[in-house]
């Protein structure tokens, strides 16, 4: 593997500014900071495993810290500050090909949220899903709904993205918006637009038009639809339509149709996973899917899912995926056990496999135990192997109401891992002055 070509995106250059601004903005409310509800979540993981790469055995011990913080009700107003980020330091050999440290600022933003949820504003780095957009953005977002149900949202800023392709420039700026009509409990209909400046497909800006619909056609029947048109390549990127029926608290069924084109959906200039010859960029996929969830007896749930996948191209060809599982919850729903079987039947033998899984948890008092076992059987040998196995055993203890310690031991035997043991230690700290529940 070669070294990645470093392309410094605008988002990365703006990062110090974003961090500074988003950390300083809450100080505006410092005078009334005592009025804020604060919560802090720290998850620390230490992994330990060995890797034998080309006869060179490495001992790997990466230490991860995932930190999130939320300060809500700042100054007694519906204003909040949210933060999420993680970092890694290797205590032994480098666990990635890049270096012994890495980190990511996932989000850091100031948010206004209307008390009834009918207006919203964000400023900073945040993950955005709005109409045709699913982006991480250094910028601003505002949204409001009027009394008649008409609403609008707009956003703009620097996209946070990377490319490893030599000479590829990432987007320099992104903006878009959505207009919608919403009637509570009945319908939401939206139309959206997104533009990202850059040299994307065919050297053009990335331009998407989107439409979305949620319609409650009966008390227990919903229709949902999403469609995205890629103007840069002048073709439909993706369509998904589904009907969901929930006749009561014990039964839930959904079925639908989805289609997408590789050329329309994937930004191949930025993600080489979708560059030919890895994938044929002219392929088109259509799927028909159905899912059933039925709580057929107290504590017992049956889950059945199926999907038929059709490709225009004979490689990779068509396939069917089926899955059936049963789960049982006990101990006041704190614990669950289940078994799941899944299969993939395909035109091409190399795409076929079967999977079986069983899991169970047990939580007496402050102790938590869990066991998860999985096996896969490939129709065609991969690296001389047709089977894969993995078992994860976990034990944890609630040391304090705010502190839990736990550890996992994982055994894997597969075409990739001959006889692999890995250990993980976990410390979870939850601090907060907020009342109410947060998961």
């Amino acid at each position, binding site marked *: 593997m070669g070294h990645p070509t470093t392309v410094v995106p605008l988002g990365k250059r703006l990062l110090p500014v974003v961090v500074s601004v988003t950390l300083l903005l809450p100080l505006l409310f410092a005078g009334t900071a005592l009025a804020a509800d604060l919560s802090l*979540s720290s998850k620390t993981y230490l992994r330990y495993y060995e890797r034998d790469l080309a006869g060179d055995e490495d001992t790997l011990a990466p230490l991860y810290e995932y930190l999130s913080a939320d300060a809500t009700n700042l100054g007694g107003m519906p204003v909040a500050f949210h933060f999420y980020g993680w970092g890694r330091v290797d205590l032994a050999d480098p666990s990635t090909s890049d270096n012994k440290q890495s980190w990511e600022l996932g989000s850091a933003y100031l948010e206004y949220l209307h008390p009834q949820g009918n207006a919203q504003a964000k400023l900073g780095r945040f993950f955005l899903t709005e109409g045709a957009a699913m982006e991480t953005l250094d910028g601003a977002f505002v949204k409001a709904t009027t009394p008649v149900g008409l609403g609008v949202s707009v956003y703009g800023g620097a996209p946070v993205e990377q490319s490893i392709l030599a000479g590829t420039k990432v987007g320099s700026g992104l903006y878009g918006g959505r207009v919608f009509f919403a009637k509570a409990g009945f319908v*939401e209909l939206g139309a959206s637009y997104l533009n990202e400046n850059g040299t994307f497909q065919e050297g053009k800006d990335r331009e998407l038009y989107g439409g979305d619909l949620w319609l409650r056609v009966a008390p227990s029947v919903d229709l949902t639809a999403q469609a995205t048109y890629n103007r840069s390549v002048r073709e439909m990127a993706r369509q998904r339509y589904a009907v969901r029926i929930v006749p009561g608290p014990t039964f839930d069924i959904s079925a639908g149709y989805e289609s997408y084109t590789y050329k329309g959906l994937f930004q191949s200039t930025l993600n080489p996973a979708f560059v030919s010859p890895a994938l044929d960029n002219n392929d088109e996929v259509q799927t028909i899917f159905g899912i059933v969830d039925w709580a057929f007896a107290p504590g017992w749930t049956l889950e059945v899912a199926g999907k038929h996948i059709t490709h225009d191209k004979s490689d990779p060809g068509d396939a069917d995926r089926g899955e059936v599982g049963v789960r049982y919850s006990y101990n006041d729903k704190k614990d669950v056990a289940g078994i799941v079987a899944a299969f993939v039947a395909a035109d091409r033998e190399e795409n076929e496999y079967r999977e079986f899984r069983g899991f169970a948890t047990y939580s007496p008092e402050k102790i938590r135990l869990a066991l998860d076992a999985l096996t896969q059987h490939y129709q065609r040998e991969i690296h001389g192997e047709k089977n894969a196995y993995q078992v994860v055993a976990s034990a944890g203890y609630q040391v304090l109401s705010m502190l839990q310690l736990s550890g996992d031991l994982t055994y894997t035997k597969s075409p990739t891992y001959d006889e692999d043991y890995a250990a993980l230690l976990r410390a979870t700290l939850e601090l907060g002055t907020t009342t109410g529940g947060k998961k």
Partner: protein
Amino acid sequence: MTRRMSFSAVFGAALIALLFGCSAVSQTPSVPPKHPEDLPQGRVDCLECHENVSAGTLKPYGTIRHSRVFIDSHGTYARQGQNLCASCHAPAFCQTCHARKEEMKPNTKMGDRPDRMAPHRGDYLITHRIDGRLDPGSCFRCHGNKNDVRCRQCHK
């Protein structure tokens, strides 16, 4: 007027309309962004207390029943507004799976919670070749279509 100028004009007009329309923001009742009471441990069944919660939430009855069906289509509901999700889930909850840059699989991070439907179990290095070949659009749902760093580790 060029197409770009037209879009800029529409964008600007929408922003101005929004600013002037702040006083006309809907007061339709919705759920509070914070659940008022502590939630029990383990999997929560919202319907035990909320038998009929559809009024005003813009969400259907089944939204708060976190079934296999709901999890498969949760993005649709999350996009409709975050108050209902935020009443129980901290904003960072989404990023335990929807992270732009991530080095640990969700089911490795949550190895102590096998009951959760965290994806990519087992030696997913092998299985993803098959799943990714057959339905790469399903990868896009969590990883995005252009900037996932984890793909870069091998696809370069």
